[in-house]
């Protein structure tokens, strides 16, 4: 389908949940790709579908109530959605690994750090316990833990939040994954610790050749770490651009609103700009553009027809009728182009 082989190619992914209140379209037609060694940020508010996208790639969606209504997730040329669970287990933690938000709850309190890291290593590699332990110490060193030889025999409760998050990252890197998914890795941490972890992520980008997908609600974190950004709103991709382009010339009104509404430390305005209203209920999205209920530019076409994700510039896609002067377009040529770069 695509000309160049990419590490990850998500095409028209739809992850729905059947609930008693109706079908929740958490992810609804999302397409994007990540190159080898690339770094993609996925940004959105709660309920935008950013975490469900990440969990879908890991195939960690519980079915039922969840289901993949359509789409493909091609990883190294193979469709992950078509794989049996057994094959997925070989990929999870080895080729694709994930870091979660809560370092407190993602580690098992009754096992030592070393136990938990070597478990992952030995599950995926044919190595002895001593070799696995050696590798565990190596990755702990890699994530900047001093005194890793001592720490490896400690329990999670001995460690602070920042240290636990380092351990989580070490664990994720222990099998040299091709893709590392980080879901809000710094949200639960204090500012000074967040700075340490962001610094680590940036350093790892040059030292490890894993591609990174960083899921976050924080545009500040996005600006600091990634090359390319996907902005999600109500289960859809509304904008996809290089990070510099996104902040310099955002095209979608939601992105513009989001960037304007964050207080910035180096400027003083008396009033903050806001996006009026709230995110629509996921069982009852408005017809047409899902942002139309809050959009200052909304016209009739926005409330009736869904805008396609169109090319608006070099490496830049946006889904807004504003970009076609509110005129409907025929099947656009950029439609299949999930690729920005």
């Amino acid at each position, binding site marked *: 389908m695509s000309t160049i082989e990419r590490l990850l190619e998500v095409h028209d992914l739809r992850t729905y949940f059947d609930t008693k209140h109706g079908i929740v379209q958490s992810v609804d037609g999302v397409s994007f790709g990540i190159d080898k060694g690339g770094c993609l940020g996925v940004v959105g*508010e*709660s309920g935008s579908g950013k975490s469900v996208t990440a969990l879908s790639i890991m195939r960690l969606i519980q079915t039922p109530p969840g289901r993949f209504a359509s789409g493909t997730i091609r990883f190294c040329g193979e469709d992950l959605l078509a794989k049996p669970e057994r094959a997925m287990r070989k990929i999870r933690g080895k080729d694709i690994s994930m870091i979660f938000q809560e370092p407190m709850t993602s580690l098992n309190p009754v096992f030592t750090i070393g136990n938990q890291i070597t478990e992952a290593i030995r599950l995926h590699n044919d190595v002895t316990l001593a070799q696995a332990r050696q590798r565990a110490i190596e990755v702990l060193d890699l994530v900047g833990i001093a005194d890793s030889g001592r720490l490896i025999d400690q329990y999670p409760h001995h460690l*602070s*939040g*920042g*240290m636990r998050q380092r351990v989580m990252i070490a664990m994720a890197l222990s099998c040299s994954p091709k893709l590392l998914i980080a879901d809000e890795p710094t949200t639960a941490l*204090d*500012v*000074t*610790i*967040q*700075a*340490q972890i*962001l*610094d680590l992520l940036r350093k790892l980008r040059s030292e490890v050749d894993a591609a990174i997908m960083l899921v976050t*609600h*924080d*545009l*500040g*974190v*996005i*600006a*600091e770490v990634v090359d390319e950004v996907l902005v999600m709103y109500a289960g859809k991709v509304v904008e996809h651009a290089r*990070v*510099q382009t996104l*902040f310099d010339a955002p095209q979608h009104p939601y992105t513009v*609103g*989001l*960037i304007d*509404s*964050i*207080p*910035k*430390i*180096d400027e*003083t*305005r*008396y*009033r*903050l*700009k*806001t*996006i009026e209203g*709230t*995110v629509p209920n996921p069982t009852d999205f408005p017809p047409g553009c899902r942002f139309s209920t809050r959009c200052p530019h909304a016209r009739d076409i926005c409330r009736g027809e869904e805008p396609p994700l169109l090319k608006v510039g070099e490496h830049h896609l946006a889904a807004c009728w504003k970009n076609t002067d509110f005129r409907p377009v025929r099947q656009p040529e950029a439609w299949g182009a999930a690729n920005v770069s």
Partner: protein
Amino acid sequence: MSREEQQSAESLLQVRDLVKHYPIREGIFVPREVGRVRAVDGVSFNVHESETLALVGESGCGKSTTGRLILRLIATTSGQIDFMGHDLIQVGKRALRTVRRDLQIVFQDPYASLDPRLRVEDIIAEPLESFGLLPRRKERRERVHELLHEVGLSSYHADRYPHQFSGGQRQRIGIARALAVEPKLIVADEPVSALDVSTQSQIINLMQDLQERHGLSFLFISHDLTVVKHIAHRVAVMYLGKIVEIADKQSLYRTPHHPYTQALLSAVPKPDPSAHRQRIILKDDVPSASRIPTGCRFHTRCPLADAICREQEPPLKEVAGGHHAACHFASPFPIPVHDRPTMPGVETSVPIRQNIR
């Protein structure tokens, strides 16, 4: 001291040497104290009328405990709290109730702080009933509608239950409830940190509007320096139970004098990929409040720490007009940061001490 007294004459709330220690006890039959968690360890500040004072710091610095001590939700170990001429520590139960009318709180978690079984009208009317204001039901109802409009909701919301609202709307209900009895001071404990970015800005704007309209004072407790920069007039930075720096917002953000404040400010991720980043990354974590380091409590993480810092605790001293910092080496930009714009009249180059490379 005269300046201090003069200041305190106009202030609504005065806090002096506030201390809260939690004893750590061991032994089943004869519990004895083996240590203390020094959650708040000698905090002093004033809040003036129509002013927002922000308490900022990382988790465990004692900012929320300070808020709760002021509301007397927990008992103080020692210190003085003077609110509009009432000594809040000494005041009896009955008198405390009358004082509480002027002293309200907005909580962090809008999901946990509203009773799920009460309608919005009952939630907002509860403080009115409790203080015996507006005894007629009809009057109370009118007042509730007025309050709902005031916080940007509509009258028809009065008959709904909390679960029918989003996080931002719930926080508006929480604010309406605090406003119901027309307080003078509202302690807002992380009121926007559970909200999404786009709703966060709505609530910040609302709080600023209400302050303007009613001349409210806020004690705004937050970990988020960017939010604080927007809403506060003055800012106090806390570290391990103490205020390490307190100043006007402009002065604090422009010329932070304490190395901790500087590190905090530099650590905030900027939503601008082309921004200059000269980040001061502090090593390790905040020490436990049960084992506070000797001397300056920040010395274990401070890039400037010297022998004196390990021995002597630096007092909070005035470094510029109304700007106080507790550091032996307090000076504008004590940690050399080169690409920062030089402020006119401010000496930015500091002598490089031996222990900084």
